[in-house]
């Protein structure tokens, strides 16, 4: 007898493990599983890789808020260290990807149906734990992104009713960031969750053995809990094949591919870059979650702001509930062809997640602080009001959010051809009043700024594009009259148009605010339900006269009628108001 056989015999007699392991390894599984059954084992492989690389990284990593960053730099300072960190990063990504594919496969083949509901539930738990690992892992990469992502995470937790504040401070380990912050994340990432994952993986595998691997679904073949188990056992007796090696060889080969992929990416692309130091007093930051949570990040920016509280708190609960209750429907058809509704729902969810993730990558809502200024070429002038207007566009932050010929941010509409869409009056309205997601600029722009900006934007036309009759008619009213406005003419107009029926000129309050002393004073107006303090200047008056129903001065009724006045007349009335000191 060979020595190795002798050893195995001894081991079996003293532990009983050899038979146990062999019998489980060769347990019969349904034939025809093919490649679509390999993703679960790939998750396990990725998890093992995470444990192994994690143990390696921990020989250098320091779990202190003050020291972690330097220790990460230290890891990155050697080629092998960078490589190891790369493996851990790509391993994490692989684990998330494989878990999602595995979940989709189980869902599509209806494998969660009777008697495998508990398999599904432990799988959902593992998904949740993996997301916790992914998030805490990003925080462990203790750089600027990490601290702000944690603050954002804590702030989100803060939305939970009643215990929100407490929960938020629990997450960051106090009321401000400090030395307790990283230590608790470390605890979670290195001890608590990995131990939980290892135990639940054990349970999951036990359940796979206990309930047997699900047979590939056949359209028309339904699950009936009363008869399923005996039918399944029958089928195994007749057609079953030993798991090892008939099915397992595919798992092993695929896992090799996964590991090879991780190593390759770690080598070529390296780990996620270590950002700036975790210094909360550095405000020039651009925090972003790692890719697995980008979809949620994007959702926060894109969904209606009023729904946010519900989304942040209710969406995760809803997702968990849906996942937990999926196996309630535990009988009937398993084949996707016979479950069009479920398949559609899955496609919808995946596309939505994908779309939000892409949006998160592009961040159209992000103001481009470093947008390259418009050049004389694009402006089409190198001096004069048009050029000055473009400079205003560069300097007053318009360019952060608006693109002109490819220069600028994406938050607001592209203004390359804005003159084809909006008249000068409409543009003025936008500057003065703002819009959904656009600030009010009445305060920031001087009268000359506004005029120049209008000059500039009016030149943003599509060459040869003919605008609708109406629009050109409005535009032909032309820029506000430059004629010298005289106060007395203004008074005459104010009288004839009935302004003085509601506005006194001696300080007495009437239906509207008195004009006396109003010029240069500060007033509080209600804009979209928010109170904003405004200085009464030309822009303000011009806006109020031409758009009486948009901003409402606090304490007055929104009843001022729209008076038809030419731009010249408006200027004259303003000139008159200016004299009422």
């Amino acid at each position: 007898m060979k020595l190795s056989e002798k050893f195995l015999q001894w081991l079996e007699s003293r532990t009983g493990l050899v038979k146990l392991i062999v019998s489980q390894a060769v347990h019969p599984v349904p034939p025809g599983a093919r490649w679509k059954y390999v993703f679960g084992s790939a998750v396990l492989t990725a998890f093992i890789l995470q444990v192994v690389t994690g143990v390696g990284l921990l020989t250098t990593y320091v779990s202190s808020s003050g020291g972690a960053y330097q220790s990460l730099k230290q890891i990155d300072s050697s080629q092998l260290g960078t490589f190891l960190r790369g493996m851990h990063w790509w391993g994490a990504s692989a684990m998330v990807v494989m878990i999602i594919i595995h979940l989709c496969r189980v869902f599509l083949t209806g494998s969660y149906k009777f008697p495998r509901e508990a398999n599904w539930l432990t799988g959902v738990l593992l998904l949740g734990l993996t997301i916790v690992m992914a998030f805490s892992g990003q925080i462990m990469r203790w750089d600027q992104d990490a601290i702000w992502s944690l603050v954002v995470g804590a702030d989100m937790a803060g939305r939970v009713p009643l215990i929100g504040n407490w929960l938020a401070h629990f997450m960051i380990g106090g009321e401000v960031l400090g030395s307790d912050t990283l230590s608790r994340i470390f605890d979670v990432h290195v001890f608590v969750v990995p131990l939980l994952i290892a135990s639940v993986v054990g349970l999951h595998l036990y359940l796979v053995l206990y309930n047997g691997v699900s047979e590939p679904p056949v359209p028309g073949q339904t699950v009936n809990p009363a008869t399923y188990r005996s039918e399944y056992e029958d089928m195994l007796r007749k057609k079953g094949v030993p798991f090892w090696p008939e099915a397992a060889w595919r798992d092993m080969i695929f896992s090799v591919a996964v590991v090879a992929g991780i190593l390759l990416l770690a080598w070529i692309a390296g780990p996620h870059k270590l950002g700036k130091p975790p210094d909360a007093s550095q405000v020039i930051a651009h925090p972003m979650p790692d890719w697995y949570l980008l979809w949620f990040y994007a959702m926060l920016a894109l969904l209606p702001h009023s729904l946010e509280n519900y989304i942040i708190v209710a969406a995760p609960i809803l997702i968990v509930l849906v996942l937990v209750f999926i196996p309630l429907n535990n009988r009937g058809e398993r084949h996707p062809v016979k479950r069009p509704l479920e398949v559609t729902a899955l496609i919808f969810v995946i596309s939505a997640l994908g779309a939000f993730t892409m949006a998160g990558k592009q961040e159209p809502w992000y103001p481009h602080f470093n947008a390259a200024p418009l050049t004389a070429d694009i402006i089409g002038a190198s001096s004069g009001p048009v050029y000055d207007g473009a400079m205003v566009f560069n300097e007053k932050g318009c360019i952060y959010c608006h693109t002109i010929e490819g220069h600028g941010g994406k938050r607001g509409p592209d203004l390359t051809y804005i003159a084809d869409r909006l008249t000068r009056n409409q543009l003025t309205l936008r500057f003065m009043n703002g819009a959904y997601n656009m600030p009010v600029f009445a305060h920031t722009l001087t009268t000359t700024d506004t005029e120049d900006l209008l000059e500039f934007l009016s030149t943003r036309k599509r060459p040869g594009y003919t605008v609708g009759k109406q629009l050109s008619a409005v535009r032909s009213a032309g820029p506000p009259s430059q004629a010298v406005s005289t106060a007395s003419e203004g008074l005459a107009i104010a009288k004839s148009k009935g302004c003085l029926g509601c506005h006194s000129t001696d300080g007495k309050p009437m239906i509207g605010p008195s004009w006396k002393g109003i010029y240069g004073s500060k007033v509080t107006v209600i804009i979209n339900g928010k109170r904003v303090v405004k200085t009464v200047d030309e822009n303000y008056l011009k806006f109020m006269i031409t758009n009486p129903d948009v901003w409402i001065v606090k304490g007055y009724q929104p009843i001022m009628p729209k008076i038809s006045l030419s731009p010249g007349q408006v200027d004259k009335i303003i000139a008159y108001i200016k004299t009422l000191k």
Partner: protein
Amino acid sequence: MKNDNENMLHRSGEADFGRRRFLSRVGMAAGALIAVAMGLPVIGYILKPSLPKMRRQWVPVGQINQFNIGDTVFVSFTNPSATAWAGVTGKTGAWVRRVADSDFIAFVINCSHEGCPVRWEASTKMFFCPCHGSVYYEDGVVAAGPAPIALQRFKVRVRGGQVELQTRPIPIT
């Protein structure tokens, strides 16, 4: 093995049954006791930092004459509660504006939306958040984006020529 179990249970009589029920309860109670005895101190210790306790303290952020009237500038300071091993993580900052002689406003750097650091853009006279694009006017009122309320403020005072801020927790809104 299953048969052995059944045999064993079969052998026992009424008296055994009652005794075993009692013993099994004792066993479970002992387990629960151990869990509580070990768990409570740990849970208490873990939860401690989340109980409100930070003392509000005044920290100096600069000489008064370093601030020009009308300018909004960034000041950074170390949280007085920070331990030595918190490193740079113990630092934080504020946007301070000298409104008039000894009249100061200090905004927290955290966006009221989810807490990202806002930056002041002097040319636009607005605060911008890099995360989901919230914008605030000069006075901290929301101008755009998902931010639900105005930027929060520090209490400011001037003592002996020093501008001082009162520390406060990261705003959770």
